[in-house]
């Protein structure tokens, strides 16, 4: 119960390590191509992780950070343990300082690295077998690995991994160790207790905000209250800003782009004081952008409507003649969906701790930089630190901490650059921990884009979809960051609108870029959550128009489809419908709605059971069925589906950030409502292990819930919800 917190491993030194434990350390590169043991040196910059077998029989799997609740530490360690043939209970996990090629985004934390960790475990196992065979003077084929030891099948003697580790460490690393067939997995596919949970029940888990260093000072940040505003004076020397009374320092801060100062960092003896002093910086210090009056939700929506009709689109997907299909259709539907900006609101606000030692500004070679950060992108953070300090990367150390939620927000680097700028203004060697106030975090997010999505579709007399046209208008995340869009536009905008598994006679998905300058970013499941609401709502309307049950209508569209994912999609849909009891009687005042989506190659069907009043919807149950190919840790897959559904449901019910003359409507949870205990539906999760290549689980639970609930609401009330959120302006109950 009182296990100490997961600690960050210092850069591992082979000789120190061997001196201390006499064990075996295997370094692994991401592609697995150049495994090398300690004996062959660990100096490669391509090293992704290490596997350690201690003389005391402890098995330690090192990971490069990235734990934000999705179970990455556990899932990857399970893979190494599986091939190593050790008991799961003997495995420990430690995060490393930042190493290259480590990123937690796109629901890829486990799936992208699983082969590496499998291969690492297998390589170590084969080396241990070789060491045992040599010691006994028998053939390797007479040695069997299991339970953390090697069995001599001639004598029944055993040697433990700890006993064999020093000899194994001197052996060459096999380039292609044999891998265990999936059917024989003992650990993968069984629910495993997550290694990061005990510290999360006793206060010892260390998040970014929990970094604590001797002599540390505390910082807060105040941004321009008008988005895009800058400090009125831009002449501060080295960023030194007139400090408020009681502050240790104040620093004018530049945005990540390096442009004009857009924020002030205030340093004090504790966080509360820093927050208070920063909060007191007057609105008169800021210059609003010239177009501030137009930074307004109504303007943005008017622009979107204009672009919907007249914008020059990128063609994301086209097949057949959609206009002819619509013209010749027996019936058509034409629906336009409106989406607000959304904030991430991770429970842990943005935070970063920096210590510059021996650092002399303007002398790039002098000193070191250490950064403790809750970051989804430690290697990008290393680049950020190099840019903002001018130091060589070899003089910089990034310590990725646990994240109190990432959700896509902690992929960004704005807060990292701020903390470094603050540290540069402090005496050398002074650690500074910056924690944003919640109000800053909500209003200065990189929001999920606002959007307007129109779907026109046609049906023939038999209920076949003859034409499907989806036009998506939203700001482009990629374009806003300077990318030149390709012929298909921004894939993050149209994902979930393209590659639909249904049988459509013709289809056209196009995209128009909206010019709003409000910063946009990657919100859990990105474009999928936008498009799924429009697509799965429109499918329901087509079913209703065709006079066919919405579930059976989807079944028909999938059975008639030649799409490669149609069969798996159908299986998920049927399982969720069966679990929910689709078609069976419900208490008066309740209805069910269903949706099926694909995101990051994972298919999820969700069936929601609801009741409704004029001001709220109550979701009683959600039956969720997921096919992610292979579930490494089924309990974590279940948790991620539950979490994704909650996240998507909060957003659908109440999530919105509106803009009035450049000022965000959201400042805290009182005006950015989220689900609480009494509103939480009971969610059942069924997992289909289809054997398809493993796919992601962190995000795909999100997109389906909004349309599933909207479809149930349509069934219950006859009203189609076209605007998100369902209940705008609702404040937190009881506040």
């Amino acid at each position, binding site marked *: *119960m*009182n296990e100490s917190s997961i600690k960050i491993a210092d850069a591992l030194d082979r000789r120190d390590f061997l001196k201390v434990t006499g064990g075996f350390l295997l370094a692994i590169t991401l592609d697995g191509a150049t495994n090398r043991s300690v004996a062959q040196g660990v100096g490669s910059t391509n090293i992704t992780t290490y596997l350690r077998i201690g003389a005391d029989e402890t098995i330690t799997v090192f990971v490069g950070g990235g734990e*934000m*609740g999705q*179970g990455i530490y556990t899932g990857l360690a399970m893979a190494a343990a599986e091939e190593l043939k050790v008991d799961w209970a003997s495995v420990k996990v430690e995060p490393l300082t930042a190493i290259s090629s480590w990123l937690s985004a796109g629901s890829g934390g486990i799936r992208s690295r699983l082969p590496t960790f499998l291969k690492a475990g297998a390589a170590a196992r084969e080396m241990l077998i070789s060491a045992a065979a040599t010691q006994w003077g028998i053939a390797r084929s007479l040695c069997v690995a299991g339970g953390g030891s090697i069995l001599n099948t001639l004598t029944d003697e055993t040697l433990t991994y700890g006993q064999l580790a020093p000899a194994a460490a001197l052996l060459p690393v096999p380039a292609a160790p044999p891998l265990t067939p999936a059917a024989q997995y003992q650990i993968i596919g069984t*629910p495993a207790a*997550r290694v*990061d*949970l*005990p*510290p*999360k*029940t*006793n*206060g*010892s*888990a*260390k*998040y970014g*905000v*929990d970094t*604590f260093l001797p002599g540390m000072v*505390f910082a807060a940040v105040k941004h321009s209250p008008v988005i895009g505003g800058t400090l009125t004076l831009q002449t501060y020397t080295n960023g030194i800003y007139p400090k408020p009374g009681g502050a240790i320092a104040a620093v004018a801060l530049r945005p990540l782009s390096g442009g004009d100062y857009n924020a002030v960092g205030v340093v004090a003896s*504790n*966080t*509360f*004081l820093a*927050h208070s002093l920063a909060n007191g910086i007057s609105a008169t210090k800021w210059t609003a952008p010239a177009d501030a009056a137009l930074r307004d939700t109504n303007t943005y929506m008017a622009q979107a409507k204009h672009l919907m009709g007249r914008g020059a689109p990128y063609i994301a997907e086209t097949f057949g003649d959609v206009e002819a299909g619509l013209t010749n259709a027996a019936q058509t539907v034409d629906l336009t969906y409106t989406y607000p900006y959304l904030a991430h609101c*991770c*429970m*842990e*606000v943005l935070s970063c701790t920096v210590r510059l030692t021996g650092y002399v500004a303007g002398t790039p070679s002098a000193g070191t930089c250490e950064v403790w950060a809750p970051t989804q992108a430690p290697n990008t953070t290393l680049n950020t630190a190099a840019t903002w300090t001018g130091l060589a990367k070899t003089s910089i150390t990034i310590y990725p901490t*646990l*994240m*109190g*939620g*990432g*959700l896509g927000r902690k992929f960004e680097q704005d807060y990292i650059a701020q903390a470094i700028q603050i540290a540069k203004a402090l005496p050398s060697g002074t650690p500074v921990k910056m924690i944003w106030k*919640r109000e800053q975090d909500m209003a200065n997010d990189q929001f999920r884009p606002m959007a307007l999505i129109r779907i026109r579709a046609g049906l023939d007399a038999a209920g076949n979809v003859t034409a499907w046209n989806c036009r998506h208008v939203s700001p482009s995340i990629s374009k806003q960051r300077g990318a030149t869009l390709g012929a298909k536009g921004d894939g993050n905008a149209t994902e979930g609108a393209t590659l639909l598994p249904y049988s459509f006679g013709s289809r056209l998905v196009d995209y128009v870029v909206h010019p709003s300058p409000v910063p946009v970013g990657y919100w859990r499941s990105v474009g999928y959550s936008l498009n799924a609401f429009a697509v799965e709502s429109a499918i329901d309307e087509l079913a209703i128009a065709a006079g066919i049950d919405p579930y059976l209508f989807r079944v028909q569209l999938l059975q008639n489809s030649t799409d490669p994912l149609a069969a798996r999609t159908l299986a998920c849909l049927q399982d969720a419908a069966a679990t929910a009891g689709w078609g069976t009687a419900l208490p008066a005042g309740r209805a069910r709605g269903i949706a099926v989506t694909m995101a990051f190659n994972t298919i999820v069907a969700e069936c929601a059971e609801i009741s409704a009043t004029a001001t709220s919807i109550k979701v009683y149950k959600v039956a969720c069925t997921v096919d992610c190919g292979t579930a490494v840790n089924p*309990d974590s897959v279940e*948790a*991620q589906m*539950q*979490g994704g*559904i*909650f*996240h998507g449901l909060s957003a659908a019910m109440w999530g919105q950030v509106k803009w009035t003359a450049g000022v965000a409507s959201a400042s*805290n*949870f*009182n005006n950015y409502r*989220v*689900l*609480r*205990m*009494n509103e*939480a539906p*009971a*969610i059942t999760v069924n997992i289909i292990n289809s054997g398809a290549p493993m796919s992601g689980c962190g995000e795909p639970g999100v997109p389906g819930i909004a349309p599933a609930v909207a479809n149930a609401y349509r069934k219950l009330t006859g009203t189609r919800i076209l605007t998100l959120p369902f209940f705008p302006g609702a404040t*937190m109950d009881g*506040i």
Partner: protein
Amino acid sequence: MITLNVNGQSYQVNVADTSTPLLWVLRDILGLTGTKYGCGKEICGACTVLVNGQAQTSCQMDVSSAVGKTITTIEGLAAYRLPNDPAGAPGVGEKLQAAWVDQQVPQCGYCQSGMLMAAAGLLKSKPHPADADINEIKNICICGTYQRIRAAIHEAANS
């Protein structure tokens, strides 16, 4: 200089402004970082601690008003017991922690200190809470662990 009783230990605390919230004294002065900042407005409950056994948010509680009271934070939960907890058996704090692991409750885990302290407060007043009693916990979890929290509270209450 004020004296705080936190987790059974007496701390002499030098805090210039005694209207500083208990949360930030715990975190920034005592280094007890298990108690979390979430909203600063008594909405999200991430900063929940026990004050004389009652669950209370600490983000707007002047540290001066904690003087003379018994404060329990997440770091002290393992040792936290109710008067009726049988001697020699795990106390309510330990049972909650065990149930939290058994039900695999946390995801990111950030809100869980506050959730556990809220649950400890609940079990003091309602040793066998109904679902409606658990619904009175208004703490926010963005990961959406409510379903497992509910199961864990029932498990702890019945163990």
